[in-house]
């Protein structure tokens, strides 16, 4: 979100210092005003500026396709997004700080809920404008979950795991089979076993089941690979990914290479939002718990950790299964957003994508994963008109980030919820 804590003291410029006093609450209200403005004034403004439609992703696509519309698009983005954001957030900053302070003193958890509700409202209105935005938002949130769960292994634990596409596949297929078997009339599994009206209520069960199966798969990797330290997890996990893909291709019962289609349409925006928030919250708590700290100790020096009575092997296995569980849930959501899965989706291409998001965002950081997943998925949508050259620009960007910030954009940062919602500036 737009409210990352900025250093006011450094020479980052007056402008940053100027905005640094705005609390997250202020930014959220600013964004809310912006999306409301778009909702009610967007189409009139578009007509006025001569744009074809409301620019979906801040006008990137229009800018790249029709250079003559650049001024109009810029003006639109300025009027709809930047001005309300600047005015509402900055001008009213003292009030926001007061409200934020009041909420915070009342109870931090109430404050968190207020922030989340606002966030959801913004997403809801923003994605309500177009189905394409909605789809992008859903897939982006799923990418956040996947990235975050891989960060637990690659960042917090410091191993190099390549098996995430495999976990995604396990989760996706398990959840799909569950919903297709019980709630959908389908040519592979026949008629629904349970009334379809029960479906949305039992859907979380399908997801959790998917997560559990993924965790079970993770156990198959964890047992051989955590006996010693080294790079062997990298190939064991890679072999696992090949095995899962090959297994699904051979299972005629789940459609083989043809894949499974027509999963029921359960995953709407609130569902994805709730699961994503849950995932961020639980993983954040996990990495800040004693297990998480033990994990960091294992990464930095396994022998020292062992000497400090950390049961290193158990810690690693627990973290690995935990990460796989969330990847499985993300896989289940993914399958129900696309309403189609096939084994070739979960191959090396997916692996490269997820790894890029983790390392781009930053290791050992919940912030980083959110930033990495959101920025890369948005970027790859926004650069769509460039076709081939998109796949030169994105890798180049990643290489540059790696060279100048080898651990990623926002690495080794604690995700401090209380610090985030606290009022800013001097009270």
């Amino acid at each position, binding site marked *: 979100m737009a409210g990352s804590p900025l250093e006011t003291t450094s020479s980052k410029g007056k402008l940053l210092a100027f905005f640094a006093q705005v609390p997250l609450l202020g930014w959220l209200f600013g964004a809310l005003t912006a999306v409301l403005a778009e909702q009610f004034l967007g189409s009139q403004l578009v007509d006025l500026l001569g744009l074809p439609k409301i620019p979906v992703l801040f006008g990137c696509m229009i800018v790249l396709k029709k250079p003559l519309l650049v001024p109009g698009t810029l003006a639109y983005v300025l009027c709809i997004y930047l001005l309300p954001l600047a005015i509402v957030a900055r001008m009213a900053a003292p009030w926001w700080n007061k409200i934020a302070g009041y909420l915070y003193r009342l109870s931090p958890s109430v404050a968190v809920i207020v922030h989340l509700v606002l966030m959801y409202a913004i997403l809801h209105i923003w994605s309500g404008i177009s189905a394409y935005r909605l789809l992008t938002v859903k897939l982006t949130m799923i990418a956040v979950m996947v990235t975050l769960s891989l960060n637990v292994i*690659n960042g917090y634990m*410091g191993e*190099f795991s390549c098996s995430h596409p495999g976990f995604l596949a396990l989760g996706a297929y398990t959840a799909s089979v569950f919903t297709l078997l019980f709630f959908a009339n389908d040519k592979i599994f026949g008629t629904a076993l349970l009334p379809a009206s029960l479906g949305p209520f039992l859907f979380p069960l399908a997801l959790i089941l998917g997560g559990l199966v993924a965790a079970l798969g993770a156990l*198959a990797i964890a*047992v*051989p*690979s955590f*006996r*010693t*330290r*080294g*790079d*062997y997890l*990298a*190939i*064991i996990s*890679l*072999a*696992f990914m*090949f*095995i899962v*893909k*090959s*297994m699904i*291709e*051979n299972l005629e019962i789940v459609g083989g290479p043809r894949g499974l289609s027509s999963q029921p349409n359960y995953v709407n925006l609130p569902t994805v939002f709730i699961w994503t928030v849950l995932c961020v919250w639980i993983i954040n708590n996990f990495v800040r718990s004693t297990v998480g700290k033990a994990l960091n100790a294992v*990464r930095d*020096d396994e*022998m020292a950790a062992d000497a400090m009575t950390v049961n290193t092997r158990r810690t690693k296995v627990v973290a690995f299964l935990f990460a796989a569980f969330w990847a499985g849930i993300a896989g289940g959501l993914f399958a129900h957003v696309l309403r189609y899965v096939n084994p070739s989706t979960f191959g*090396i291409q997916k692996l*490269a994508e997820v*790894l*890029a998001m983790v*390392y*781009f965002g930053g*290791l050992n950081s919940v912030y980083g994963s959110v930033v990495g997943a959101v920025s890369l998925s948005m970027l790859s949508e926004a650069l769509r008109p460039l076709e*081939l*050259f998109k*796949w*030169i620009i994105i*890798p*180049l960007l*990643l*290489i540059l980030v*790696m*060279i100048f910030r*080898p*651990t*990623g954009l926002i690495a080794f940062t604690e995700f401090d919820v209380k610090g985030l919602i606290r009022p800013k500036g001097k009270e």
Partner: protein
Amino acid sequence: MGFFLQNLINALQWGSFYALIALGYSMVYGVLMLFNFAHGDIFMVGAYIGFGIASGLLALTALGGIVLPSWLILVLTIIISMFLTSFVGMIVERVGYRPLRDAPRASAAITGLMIGIILETGNLALLGARRVRFPTLIQSTTYDIGGVFVTNKKIMIVVVSIALMFALHQFVRKSKWGMAMRAMAFDYVVVPLLGVPINTIARLTFAIGSALAAAAGILFGVAYPVLDPYMGIVFGWKAFVAAILGGRGSILGATLAGFLLGFIEIFVAMIFPSTLRDFIAYSIILLILTFRPHGFFGEPYSARLRL
């Protein structure tokens, strides 16, 4: 028996590609402790460079500019492409790996991955979407030895790859540079302090690995004459498996593991229903690693790893 022998010969050819590519992986991994995920795509680039040189030489011959027998063209193609591709490797090292030498190892792996994507897309942008046919440099002759079919190409490929592996082995064992590499592999921190030029060694490692990948690419073109920009991906990842399976920095290990991977893939398809090939082949590898977690020739190392 004939059936078995036939598959043995097929597996030897298939394994030699894995082995040649795995060697490049293994050298970078052994000396610098880095994964070079761009290696599969360097193999692709090598094959395309070979394609360009072979076509150029053939065109020259056809125009009557020079008179060269086709075997000489093949030899020249291999030598020139190995030379040129080694520069590609050095550029990859300079751009993607040197700035990251002190960074977490995985970050360098990501730059490698991204350089690979750039190489693939760059190829697609430069040459268009068509696949190209590698020119026929040797007329294939099939010998029927008691029901076992062997082609002259297969013999050539296996002989050339083994010769290259042997040459590499000698280089690393006997030469001054080879010794420096082994020293670096032994201790990454202290050896540069003793005056071994780390940048030169790193460049050399990448250059040799890439040259071998180029040789593999051309031999691949001779055996399977269809090249496409994405041909290196699967090869790269599987050779990565072979390199680590062989043990850290072990040339013999990478060679053996490469051949073993080839054998497993071919023989699993021979014995079991071929649909289950990947499933069984990689389960076997998982099993091997369970019992030999450090690969064939790797030693357990207690040195603290960077991330």
